[in-house]
Structures are given as C-alpha cells and as structure tokens.
C-alpha cells in the first residue's frame, strides 16, 4: 500500500493568503502538493457548509486562510471566519470526526514562506490522523 | 409607645410593652428527626421572645417550617413561622395560614424566598404566585377584614389572629430605593420587620433616620439583625462573597488582631457593641439574633449583651 497522501482543501482570501500562495510559487518554494486552493473574496465568505461539502466529497483536511487579525480588508471577516471554524470543529467532534481536520490560519500577502510552511505543517497533522473516515466509506 | 394588641403573640406583647425585644432563629433539619429541633430549641427557651423557623432557606429542602415551629413551641417558646411564596400558590398559602393558626402559630414572617437555582433541587418548578408584599396583604386581609383573596368571608372566630412580620434589607441595591420598598411593606400592613445582618453601621443609621422621618417606625416595629462573627475567615468571606453585605475593614482588623482562639469572643464583643447602640437607636425596637448552627451560644451571647431576663407577659 502506497503512503497516504492527504487531500486538503484551502479556502484562501484573495487579499492575503491567495497572494501568499502566489508569492510562495514565485519564490519557487516547495510545499506539499496535495492542496487544492479555492479563491474566496474574503475569509469572511467562508461558511460552514463549504467545509461540510468538502468533507462530504472526500477531503481529509480543510483550512481557511485569512488576513492577519486586524488586517482584514472588510474589517472583521477573518474574525467571523475563525468563529465559524471553532463552531464547526465542535460539531465535527460531536459526530466523531477529528476537529483537527479543520483549521484557520492568518497570513499576509507577503508571507509566502510562512504560507508554505503552514501548508506542510497542516498536511503533517492530517497525515498523522490518517484518511478521513468519510473517504474510507466513499471508496468502499 | 404602646399599641393595641391584635394577637396572642408573645413577641407582640413584648414590643407593645416598650421593652427591647429579642428574636432568635432556628433552621429545621434536613431530615425527619424532630429531636434535633427540640435540642436546638432548648438553647433558645427563656433567652429570646420568639424564634424564627426558616422555610426551606436557600431553597434547600428541610423539615417544613410549620412542623418544626410546632416542635419548637412544644419545647416552650413561640415561633415566627417563615413562609416563602416560592413554593406555594395562593390556594396553599391561605390554607397553610389557616392551618398554622389553628395549630397555635401566632407569628408569620412573609417572604418571597430565594430562587431555587442554587438550592438542592434546581430542576423544580417555582410558583411565585405573589411576592412578599402580596403575602403580607393576604394575611392582613384574612385577619383584619376576615376575607380570603377570593372575597370569601371568614367567620369572626375563624380569622387567623397572626402577628405579621417580614424582612427588610437596608443594604441591597438600588440603595436609594430600599426605603421605598420597606415603605411598601409597611403600607401593606406588616406589624414587625427584621433586617438582614447589619455590619455597616453608618449606612444603617442613615437608613433608620429616613425610616423615622417617613413615619414608618410609628406603624411597624423595626428590629435590627445581628450575626456575630465566629472567626476571621467568616468575616472575610462575608466581606468578599455575600452580595449586599458590607463588612467594615475595622471589624476585620479587630478579629485579625486577636489570637485565633479568641476570635469568636471578639466577634461576640463586636456584636454586643452594635446591640448596645441599637438599644438607643431611634426607631429600633429590638434585635433579631441569627446564630445559625451556633444556637448553643445564644445563652452566653444574650447574657453578654445584657438582654436578660426576658419579660414574662
């Protein structure tokens, strides 16, 4: 059996994290390849239903990347996103899904290296958890 | 000041005679053991004019105040049966008043009662059909007008001749409003009022001056509540944790300055000094001693305060 490569969905704010991913790319930084980035206009656009659908479709991990706290283009979109992440983590725990599969990170547009490092760190966490129990059933 | 005697209450007779009255307090047991009540009552007989019997205080289930009160009366001293409106609607309230009087209860302390949230049965449904002021009106209507709340008339021999009491709190918030609420109780027809425990003498003096100026002390007997400190820890606890009770730093310091084994003695000394002031404070007609779970100290304490002998009327 080949080594488990987690499938990760990242909801990235267009003002910061999405650019940080670009910065990482133009700096030719290497980071784990199994992340699919979804552009959102602000991390405040993140909704619990988006993460739920990602998990239902077989994602092993989901994270939301927004601007640094205090740096949201729309004032407090990232704070709202954080609260939704915490809310959903609790709900996931109640249905027996590891809450660590969902996370929130704050980066600025220039923090390419930090973005790359976070992706690796999160991928490591998810890898440690193993495949999502939902995905195992999908494959069966 | 002498007033018309309305009841067979010993407390009323003492107050009406102009003597400085003394009431005690006894908490019924959390069991069906009647001997415990009789034991505690022994310390109070002859030392106070009547004894408050608490009604499931702090919403913790205990023997009923009526039953414990009757046990206390059997031991040889009248009781002030407490009644809270938390657990009874107007049907039970009026029925219990009739029953209590028929069994020989002469004093009833009308209270709203602590909310059950912090009691031992927070799952219970509360009643609060009326508040303490409504309860005072209810007893007064039954006694003086011979009418139930429904308007139903009571025959003259069937009217409960009850001496009506309630509590007043000079220290709760909002400060300026407390005298108004006390006035409402007087207007409702209360005969005597006992306060929460008093430590903040300046604020109490100011409160009583207002009560005298408003003429309230001419219409009802005001009694001052006293709880001696058992030790420094108790004083500190009350200072920090009991809402509406202000313990002056001066009292804490006095307890701190004596060795631990002398603290109880110092606490009683502080209380006796307060009582000495109450004896001549305008409007104050007696003291209410709350030595809860410390009933055996009552004989020594009343002696220390020169409150003996109690008048026999």
């Amino acid at each position, binding site marked *: 059996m080949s080594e488990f490569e987690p499938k990760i969905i990242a909801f990235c704010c267009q003002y910061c994290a999405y650019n940080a991913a670009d910065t990482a790319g133009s700096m030719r930084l290497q980071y784990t390849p199994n992340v699919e980035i979804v552009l959102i206009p602000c991390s405040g656009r993140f909704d*619990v*239903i988006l993460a*739920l*659908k990602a*998990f*239902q479709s077989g994602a092993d991990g989901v994270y939301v990347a927004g601007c640094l706290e205090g740096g949201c283009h729309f004032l407090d979109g990232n704070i709202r996103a954080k609260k939704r992440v915490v809310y959903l983590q609790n*709900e996931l725990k*109640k*249905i*027996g*899904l590891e809450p660590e599969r969902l996370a929130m990170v704050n980066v600025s547009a220039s923090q390419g290296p930090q973005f790359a490092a976070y992706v690796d760190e999160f991928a490591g966490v998810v890898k440690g958890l193993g495949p*999502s*129990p*939902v995905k*195992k*059933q*999908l494959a*069966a | 000041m002498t007033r018309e005697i309305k009841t067979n209450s010993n407390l009323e007779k003492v107050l009406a005679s102009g003597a400085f009255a003394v009431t005690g307090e006894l908490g019924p047991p959390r069991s069906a053991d009647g001997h415990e009540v009789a034991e505690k009552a022994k310390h109070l007989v002859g030392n106070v004019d009547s004894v408050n019997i608490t009604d499931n205080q702090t919403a913790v289930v205990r023997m009923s105040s009526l039953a414990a009160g009757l046990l206390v009366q059997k031991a040889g001293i009248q009781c002030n049966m407490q009644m809270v409106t*938390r657990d009874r609607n*107007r049907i039970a309230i009026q029925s219990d008043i009739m029953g209590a009087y028929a069994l020989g209860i002469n004093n009833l302390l009308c209270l*709203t*009662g*602590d*909310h059950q*949230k*912090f009691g031992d049965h927070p799952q219970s449904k*509360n009643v*609060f*059909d*009326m*508040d*303490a*002021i*409504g309860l005072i*009106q*209810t007893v007064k209507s039954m006694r003086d007008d011979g009418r139930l*709340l429904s308007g139903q008339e009571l025959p003259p021999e069937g009217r409960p001749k009850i001496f009506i009491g309630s*509590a007043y*709190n000079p220290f*709760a*918030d*909002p400060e*300026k*409003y407390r005298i*108004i*609420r006390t*006035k*409402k109780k007087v*207007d*409702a027809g209360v005969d005597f009022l006992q306060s*929460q425990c008093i430590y903040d003498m300046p604020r109490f003096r100011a409160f009583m001056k207002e009560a005298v100026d408003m003429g309230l002390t001419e219409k009802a007997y005001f009694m001052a509540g006293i709880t001696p400190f058992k030790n420094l820890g108790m004083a500190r606890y009350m200072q920090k944790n009991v*809402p*509406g009770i202000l313990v002056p730093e001066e009292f804490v310091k006095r307890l701190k300055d004596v060795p631990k084994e002398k603290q109880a003695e110092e606490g009683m000394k502080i209380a006796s000094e307060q009582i000495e002031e109450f004896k001549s404070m305008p409007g104050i007609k007696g003291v209410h001693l709350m030595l809860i779970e410390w009933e055996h100290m009552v004989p020594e304490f009343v002696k220390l305060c020169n409150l003996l002998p109690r008048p026999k009327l």
Partner: protein
Amino acid sequence: MIICERKPIDEIKGFIAGKKKVLLVGCRGCVTVCNAGGTKEVEILAALLRLDAQKEGVELTVDEFTLERQCDPEYVDELADLVAKGYEVILSMACSVGPQFLSRRYPKERVFPSLNTCFIGGALAHGVWAEHCQACGNCIIHNYGGMCPVSRCSKSIMNGPCGGSSNGVCEISKEVECVWHLIASKYMDEGRLEEFAPIQPIKDWSKSRDGGPRKIVREELVK
C-alpha cells in the same frame, strides 16, 4: 419572536438511528430570524447528518425543504407531495408548533423536533437573544417603565427589587440583569418615584398558561 436553539446532534441522531430516509423541514418564520431553523440551518444539519452517515458507512438520504411557516395549515399542506414520497422520519426545524402541526396534518408520519423552543424574546446583538415576554395574557409593562417583571424578574415579582438584587444583577446569576433595578432606576432618574411607590396588586394569572391552554377566536375572521 420565538427564540429556539438546535438540539444536540446526538439527540437528533437518536431520532433517526437505523433509518435510511429522512426529511428535514425548516421554517421561514421566527427560527429563520434567530438562525435556528431556516434554509441555511437545514442545509447545515442535513450536511452534518450525511457526513456522519458516510463516516459510519450507513446509507442515509436526507432531503431538505423549508416552508414559509409551519404554524399555518396552508403552508403545511405544501409538503403533501414530498411526504407522499415516503420518509421514515420527518425532522422539523421549527419551534414546537411546527412538529405538532406536521404530525397533525400527516398523522401516519413520525415527526420529531430538532429544535428546543426556548422563549419569546429579541436580539440584544447579532447572535445574542434575551427573554422579554412570558405570554401572561395581560400586558402590564406600562406600569413598570416599559419593562416586563413577569418574564425578566427571576421571581416574577410585582413589587421588586427583592433583597437578591446587587449591583444591578440578579441573585441567580451575574449574567442576568435585575429588571427591577432598571425599573426603579428609571423612575428615580425621571423623578417619578411617587408614581411607582404604590403597592402593585397580586397578579391575576388566569389569562396566563395557569388558566389552561389558551385559544383566541376572532369572529370577524372566522369563515
């Protein structure tokens, strides 16, 4: 409005345990406004239940539908075609009137409440609601500075504040403001204390729930 809160997911899972076909019905009334049972909350609960079923490897279909209101028969009727498709369980995401109306209209169906109906209240801030009415059936707030002592005082007293009022909060919790403190302060601040000093009479509770389940018939509206 009527303020509700979703039941814990475990309790809802208990209602549908072993069932394969579930209909989840939301309501566009009060519970949409208080974010407990509108289209969005229906979508989230359905997704959570599906995710849970996927994880467990059990077959589960959760269909979603949100009615204009669940407390009016004409809207409840709109569910007829969907119900005819055959569901093992119908979960109502309305206040408790909803599941009662659904099970009366569709008596053969097994209808469960997914919300706890908490109180009649209003939003103090986004995401914060507080009780303001107990439906006592005879509004008296004009006698109390526009504030309700029945619902907002822990003891529903008519002549407060009681001795448990301290620093403007109730004896039961520092999170509960003492409405009597607010009432008394308002009259004192406005210099209208004399209006407030008279004793308020013992309340007549016969128009409240104490008088039995209530019903209103408006003759001019009845066909």
